[in-house]
């Protein structure tokens, strides 16, 4: 098993609804879906954003799109109306999710694209 950054396996986009953040996580290839599903759990995501005092983290699986949708309650310091942060929408936080590492079996490792 080799550890790689989630950024090498998947891309992501955030959106906000009030104080709730959603991050769509989309695998570059269908072969990555099961590994990401097993390792990028709601608990692990909640831990990653623990500094923000998040509430419930829900993961919705979309296997036909090789994708997951994470919904994080109370993740935005009150939302764009109330946050004192630079990024009240949480738009940059999609790339925080991509900082997680994932352990890959060798057969799948060979499919990972290297930065150009």
């Amino acid at each position, binding site marked *: 098993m080799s550890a790689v950054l989630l950024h090498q396996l998947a891309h992501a986009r955030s*959106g906000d609804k009030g104080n709730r953040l959603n991050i769509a996580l989309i695998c570059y290839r269908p072969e990555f879906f099961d590994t990401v599903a097993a390792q990028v759990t709601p608990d692990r995501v909640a831990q990653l954003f623990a500094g923000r005092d998040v509430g419930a983290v829900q993961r*919705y699986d*979309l296997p036909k*799109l090789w994708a997951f949708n994470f919904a994080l309650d109370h993740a935005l310091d009150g939302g764009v*109306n109330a946050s004192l*942060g*630079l990024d009240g929408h949480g738009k*940059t936080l999609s790339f925080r999710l991509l900082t997680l590492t994932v352990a890959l079996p060798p057969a799948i490792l060979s499919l990972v694209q290297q930065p150009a």
Partner: protein
Amino acid sequence: MPVTTVHIGAGAGFAGDRAGAALPVVQALAASGAPSFLIFETLAERTLALAQLERQRDPQAGYSPSLVALLQPVLALCLHHKIRIVSNFGAAHPQAAARRIRAMAADMGFPQAKIAVVSGDDLSARFSTADLAARETDGRLLQGRGSIVAANAYLGAQPIAEALDAGADIVVTGRVADPALVLGPLVHAFGWRWDDWDRLAAGTLVGHLLECGPQVSGGYFADPGFKDAPSGHAGDFVEIGYPIAEVRADGSAIITKPAGTGGVVDLRTVKEQMLYEIHDPAAYLTPDVVLDITQVEVEQAGPDRVALRGARGRARPATLKATVCFPAGLFGEAEISYAGPNATARARLAIDIIRARMARLQPALALRADIIGVVSSFGDSAGHDLAAATAESEDVRVRFAARHADAAPVQQLLAEVEALYVAGPAGGGGVRRHLVPQLASASCLIERELVQPGMELLA
């Protein structure tokens, strides 16, 4: 002969979007020969409240300030080729927007242009603040509040379809659900029934994909080395082609963009936008239908062409969402730079000094500090992430922010940050500060029978 395919282009995905970006879209729609529509989405949550404040200052204002810049490059071409325009740029004053458009059209040689105005979203006359507070979801921001700036329900696609049925060349709305800008033209063109949930879901999905303009066609997408344009040229992200949907009567659709433009439409761009601002993908609530995207299939059908099918729908909700905006005090920010050896330590000292000074001057004021270059965007407001960070940078910017009902405490913070010039750590420079009034918003659910959407052609 019944219509088999309708083309819908998006000319803007937000009020500040790029004027002129719609021109290649309109040219492609004109060349297609298919029944065509152009949408502009220009109303973010608080944009409408800002427009309401404008209208209070000037009774002829209150529509989107970008209306003229967005329409000027394409209005004559659209009217000439019978490409019908649907937009929410009416904001807080759709009537005034319609009059302005009529004047523009007349100047361009189209005095007969038919312009429709959609009404019924403005709840402020029929609902007191207490009525709205009783219907608030997700919090109690409205309870006991005196004045509000704006209260608007998200209308569905019905009044838009009716306006097109009545022959409108241009449909001007205030608050409507963004996907309704697309669903309205589709229902008008195909005659879908208002309880044909799967078709309404398919049209809503197309609307959701188009409503943010270039976000589905290569905007908000590039990640060099990981997500590039097909050519590999970074220059392809300069003039991004705004999206066009080719929708068939069964609801299946192709998402594409004008030939010869930059950007990219592929599985990655379409999936990112499909899930944008979604909570439960099996239940995306809109005024017209509950959309389920879990069974949607996407397929690359050619260069910059993605086919979608499989949206499913369930009966629309009994309530309509409404956004209520109210004044929320003043927000201030001030920044100062530190660079070179030991810059991060000097930045941290600046934060400690400001916190200590403000604790004496304004003990009740909550303030946030960031070190841009170490932890800022990812950081939390309580400062846990910044405290834990071990990274050092030799070129940082310290940022302070606070909000308060009154200006004075925030102004004091900004003055203290500026005073770091003489009374802070060594080598601080480049102070910038600003103080702005803030609007906040709350969400309500309104019984559908209490909202009366309507449409009329401008006399």
